[in-house]
């Protein structure tokens, strides 16, 4: 295959797989949550209830796509697309295997961080343009939460960058050939995991859409496919964060025996399940606890982690310093 045709094939393939996986995550989440609560979950439509996704899609596509008369119309329409675009763009830099990658940026990690920061706009604009007090409160929370967790999300990854010596995600994976970074960078992993949950606004950090306080949060006024896009965006976010954890800390596609892509998908799947397990087992903290935890505990920890990693790296390889 010629080089442009190959890139386009990879591009479309990644797009389709990402969207399909995120759609099936709706089923997976409902099913796993049910299993962890001693129930069955959706098991009627098709084998294991797999066609539930299709039923949900048909339902959401045929729902009335309503824009409230008091909403700021252009921004209201724009907001759900932002989250989809930013998350899907982040998928471009993820190395699924050594050959399957949409673009090989030498600053792939920075690109990912930048795109996940842009995702805040979706929530903030959605809540703002809904012209609804609860939505606005939710988007204020989302902005505060994502800005503060963004800080040490970046810092926690700098340890990985220090060890691998590159911002290039493919180089980072290749640097884990002998030892996955989850061992030397355990603190970085834990901090990145927590920040990642906060970035995807998943339970226990789903304060922007805390049902018990804020109706449905920033998407209270959304319906039909616009709501669906927020939803798919959230699941894409989970997939993305899981894929990033695998890439940065668990050796990406590296693994014995199985083909590389299978290793990558398997590891990602485990982390997606872990995200759902988090939702099944943890309560939601208060907002001030969330912010205090972020700034007073995680930020110092990530700085300390960076300091120690830097010191060790310098001690081991003085030539690099």
């Amino acid at each position: 295959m010629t080089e442009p045709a190959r890139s386009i094939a990879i591009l479309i393939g990644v797009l389709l797989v990402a969207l399909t996986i995120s759609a099936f995550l709706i089923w997976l989440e409902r099913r796993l949550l049910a299993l962890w609560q001693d129930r069955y979950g959706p098991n009627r439509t098709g084998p294991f209830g797999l066609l539930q996704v299709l039923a949900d899609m048909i339902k959401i596509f045929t729902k009335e796509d309503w824009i409230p008369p008091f909403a700021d119309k252009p921004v209201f329409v724009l907001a759900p697309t932002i989250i989809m675009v930013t998350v899907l763009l982040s998928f471009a830099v993820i190395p699924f295997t050594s050959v399957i990658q949409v673009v090989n940026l030498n600053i792939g990690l920075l690109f990912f961080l930048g795109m996940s920061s842009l995702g805040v706009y979706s929530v903030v604009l959605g809540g703002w343009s809904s012209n609804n007090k609860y939505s606005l409160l939710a988007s204020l929370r989302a902005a505060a939460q994502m800005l503060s967790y963004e800080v040490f999300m970046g810092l926690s990854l700098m340890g990985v960058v220090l060890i691998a010596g590159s911002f290039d995600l493919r180089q980072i994976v290749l640097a884990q050939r002998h030892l996955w970074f989850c061992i030397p960078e355990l603190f970085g992993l834990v901090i990145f995991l927590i920040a990642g949950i906060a970035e995807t606004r998943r339970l226990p950090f789903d304060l922007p859409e805390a049902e018990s306080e804020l109706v449905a949060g920033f998407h209270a006024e959304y319906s039909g496919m616009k709501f669906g896009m927020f939803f798919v965006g959230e699941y894409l976010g989970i997939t993305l964060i899981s894929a990033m954890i695998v890439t940065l800390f668990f050796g990406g596609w590296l693994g014995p025996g199985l083909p590389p892509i299978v290793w990558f998908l398997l590891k990602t799947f485990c982390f997606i399940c872990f995200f759902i397990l988090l939702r099944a087992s943890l309560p939601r903290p208060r907002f001030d606890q969330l912010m205090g935890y972020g700034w007073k505990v995680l930020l110092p920890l990530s700085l300390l982690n960076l300091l120690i990693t830097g010191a060790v790296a310098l001690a081991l390889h003085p030539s690099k310093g």
Partner: protein
Amino acid sequence: MLSLLKTFWYVFLHLFRKRETIQYPEEKVPLPPRYRGRIILSRDPDGGERCVACYLCAVVCPVACIALQATEDESGRRYPEFFRINFSRCIFCGFCEEACPTYAIQLTPDLQMSEYRRPNLVYEKEDLLISGPGKYPDYNFYRVAGLKIAGKDKGQAEQEQPPVDLRSLLP
């Protein structure tokens, strides 16, 4: 932090627990015999209708879903000419069963009576009447009541003294 991990582990272990769900159309909940479901009219052990059309059930019904008309046959037994329960109104409170003096009206452990058309939920007497005595197999109202009907005179009921001749009590 350790307690969090413990929480994850315990929640994860629920994967292998027994499910609470009863998968309804295939599996069903075992209903106790006194469950308050579909209403029936029972017969006495001899096969006669137990209902004496006293209207107590229709009066006590809080949603007024029971309609009936009393009549009497040539032997002197009262029975309902028609007996109609509108199950789209019925709340299955069981008051009719409590009010019934002859154990005729009874609630059964059957709840699968959905219909696509509302008029189909109006049950007539032939839909309600069953062939057996229901929950009280030995009870026969006319055998214990003092009422005179054809083939059973005064004083012939079970545990009933023969009627006293008032005029023989002269001093």
